[in-house]
């Protein structure tokens, strides 16, 4: 009979490990995908994982400051998505593709 006490009683550690795994899935997405839009989605996933870390720490340490950090992260993530997608649309209009290798051609 294995010791199940670590698995039961969900606490801070469980949330942090979950967030870490989601973050790494996001990294895999950024490294392995070629479509810029999917890469941006993976970045959003990573930011979400960070948010989860912040909120769980804020909950288990009894401070609301973590939630405010999440608020700001969300804002910045949305801004990043807006500008990033505007760039992607420009690239698509010019080359008709959204592959990351197109970005090699962008020279000043």
């Amino acid at each position, binding site marked *: 009979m294995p010791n199940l006490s670590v698995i039961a009683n969900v606490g801070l550690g469980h949330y942090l490990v979950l967030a870490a795994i989601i973050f790494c899935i996001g990294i895999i997405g950024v490294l392995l995908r070629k479509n810029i839009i999917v890469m941006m989605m993976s970045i959003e996933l990573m930011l979400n994982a960070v948010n989860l870390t912040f909120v769980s720490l804020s909950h288990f340490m009894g401070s609301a400051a973590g939630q405010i950090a999440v*608020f700001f992260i*969300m*804002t910045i993530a*949305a*801004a990043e*998505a*807006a500008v990033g*997608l*505007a760039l992607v*649309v420009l690239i698509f209009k010019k080359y008709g593709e959204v592959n990351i290798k197109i970005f090699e051609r962008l020279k000043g």
Partner: protein
Amino acid sequence: MLPVLILGALVILFGGGLIFLVSFLGPSKPSAEKSMPYECGLVGVEKRDTKVSVKYYLVAILFILFDIEVIFMYPWAIIYKSNLAEAGTFLFIEMMFFMAILIFGLFYIWKAGALDWE
């Protein structure tokens, strides 16, 4: 939260299950014409590059930006009334500064022609 999830599951089960059950009731006579995209009875002109105005996604981008500003107003609205006596003026000026920049942004977008649809 749990009741919300349960209700969501219930709704999906209801919709999906009924679609599945109802599919046994109706007739089934597939034909080549029927499975073509519907274009008012004409033979479809397959054109992959449908030109879509950039405006649609520009509207979505502007929506995201303003939506964030609106979201920041909710916490403000909650505490505004209860703190009116002690910090009312402070909170008001804070938000007016925030809103002034928002309105300036709206004005810029307006003048740049991003809100004009031909």
